[in-house]
């Protein structure tokens, strides 16, 4: 199969993720959408790796996975503590940092 199709898929997934981040209010969903975007990038990296015939892209994909895992740990912890404090997981409610 033409590897370019994988790139189309990656772009589609990324767009879905980005749209989700922008329009959804629930922090968990936003978070999942961020993961979706990351994985779209991973897919693109692996596809590029295949197309160019070297392993750099795959290595970077592994890094991304590690970072994503770390991010999940920190992010979920934040979301849980925000939810505990405010009884809501809406990202719009958490706007205390503005003046």
């Amino acid at each position, binding site marked *: 199969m033409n590897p370019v199709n994988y790139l189309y898929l990656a772009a589609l997934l990324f767009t879905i993720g980005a749209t989700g981040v*922008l329009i959804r209010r629930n922090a968990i969903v936003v978070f999942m959408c961020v993961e979706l975007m990351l994985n779209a990038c991973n897919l693109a990296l692996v596809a590029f790796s295949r197309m160019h015939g070297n392993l750099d892209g795959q290595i970077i994909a592994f890094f991304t996975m590690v970072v994503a895992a770390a991010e999940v740990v920190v992010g979920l912890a934040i979301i849980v503590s925000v939810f505990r404090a405010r009884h809501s997981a809406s990202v*719009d409610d958490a*706007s205390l940092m503005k003046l």
Partner: protein
Amino acid sequence: MENLIALLVAAPLLGAAVLLCGGRRLDAVGHWIGTVLAALSFVFGAVLFADMLGKDPEHREMSQHLFSWIPVEGFQADVAFQLDQLSMTFVLLISGVGSLIHVYSIGYMEHDERRRRFFGYLNLFLAAMLLLVLADNYLLLYVGWEGVGLASYLLIGFWQHKPSAATAAKKAFLVNRVGDVGLSIAIMLMFTTFGTFAFGPVLASAGDSGEGTLTAIGLMLLLAACGKSAQVPLQSWLGDAMEGPTPVSALIHAATMVTAGVYLIVRSAAIFNGAPDAQLVTTVVGAVTLLFGAIVGCAKDDIKKALAGSTMSQIGYMVLAAGLGPIGYVFAIMHLVTHGFFKAGLFLGAGSVMHGMNDEVDMRKYGGLRKYMPVTFVTFGLGYLAIIGFPGLSGFFSKDMIIEAAFAKGGTEGWILGGVALLGAAITAFYMTRVMLMTFFGEERWKSRPTASPEEPSAEPAAEHHGAHAEPHPHESPKVMTIPMIVLAVGSVFGGAFFSIGDRFVHWLEPVTGHTHGHPPVSALTVTVATVTVMVLGVGLAYLQYGRRPVPVVAPRGSLLTRAARRDLLQDDFNHVVLVRGGEHLTRSLVYVDHTLVDGVVNGTAASMGGLSGRLRRLQNGFARSYAVSMFGGAAVLIAATLLMRAV
């Protein structure tokens, strides 16, 4: 022998340092320390004088180089002294009269709790004045010049709890500062013209420079002299300076400091000789001040202010003489010395009168005092005869010489200047007779006087302690005060004759100042006769007005001129309106401008920045998703731009 010169200055300087830093421990002996050190300075002066007399007239100049003061590339200022006949004359006058006045002050200031400090200031003055006349360059002279200004400031404002004294002191310093600007510009001009400002090289090479430069230097020196010597237009401080204790008026504002301007002009003779225009201006200033001071002196009821007007007028004579050039220099100095004697004597006499009269200064509340204060009366009277130029007394000789020299100037100028000088002599006789009659003759107006008039506050604060209503009990002053007066009176009587017989004074000063004998258009005898005649006329007029008729205790309204003269011929009013008011408005508006405009521009910039950021702040609405939109948007723009660039 040269090494003694520095000691002349050092002795009183040491006294000032000890007395001012010594604290209350020295209160009991302070006045003796001050007096002894002043006298010591006089003794050094006398020793040097004796040494100088033993030398050949052409080689009498001594000098002492102490150390290099400000060594900068191309600029050399030294602390070095020069003692020639001119300086010697001043040294003897300053330390002599100064010592006498120290003695007098022991009695006069006896009841003042700050007497130690008073003597410290007096010593400081002596040191600065001696430095002024001993300096061998203009910059060191400038140090003495401002030093005497400082001492004068401190002494005029000695009773500084009185606002009038503090104001008078400030005024004196400020007006003098205006004059000092003249001196500093003159020194700068000398530096750029001659590359130095030491007397020797400057005066020797004065001829090498153009007349324009010399005129500029001369006029600037004249400005300085006007400030220090209270000449029109910078004369306004001298009358107010009478707020100081009377010994101060005698020493600083009559005998020595105010004559420093004359010294400066005579010292710079070589410069003035090369600048006829500057000389002309000098004579005009002298002539105008001579009349100005005399007219003011006629109208004042305050005995010290009347004498102050007289001082101004007499210094006008000296400046006039100094402006005449080589025909007048010697006589300017001679009049300066004789004036030092009789005017100091007159002021000490006035102080003695005030001492016996509860510090009353208004002559309208004196009268008939000759019975109560015989010594004061006689010494004051001799000083009076000397100043009006009674034949045979010192003022007669010195003033007559100046009038002769003024006529000898030649041409219309000579006639005008001579005429003014003669007129001045007549007015001098008038106002001095007025002072004499109002104080020592006539009815005793101090008895059963109604109340102290509030518009004439007495100059001496002790009046507050005595109580203004107490009737005075005139009495003679203690010996410590009368003896200096007697010594000065002797000087006033015999000084002129001593100097004039065989032209002693002329021969003494000639090597320094140069002298050419002036030839008046009329014979010298005619001038003398005219002088004596106008003097008699002045005395007679005064007698008619103040001797024959009773003197009213409250001053009559008087003519327009009298009223103007009482206010120092409106000079103060002019200063007040133009300088004080104008200055106040200027500073106030500048404060406003600084706050609103200069600062405002900056604050305005800051405020507009704040406004801008306030608007930008709205973008930060706190919604994470709107930040995400801007991030995505930004990323999209970047990518688009990159692609576009690549496509191009």
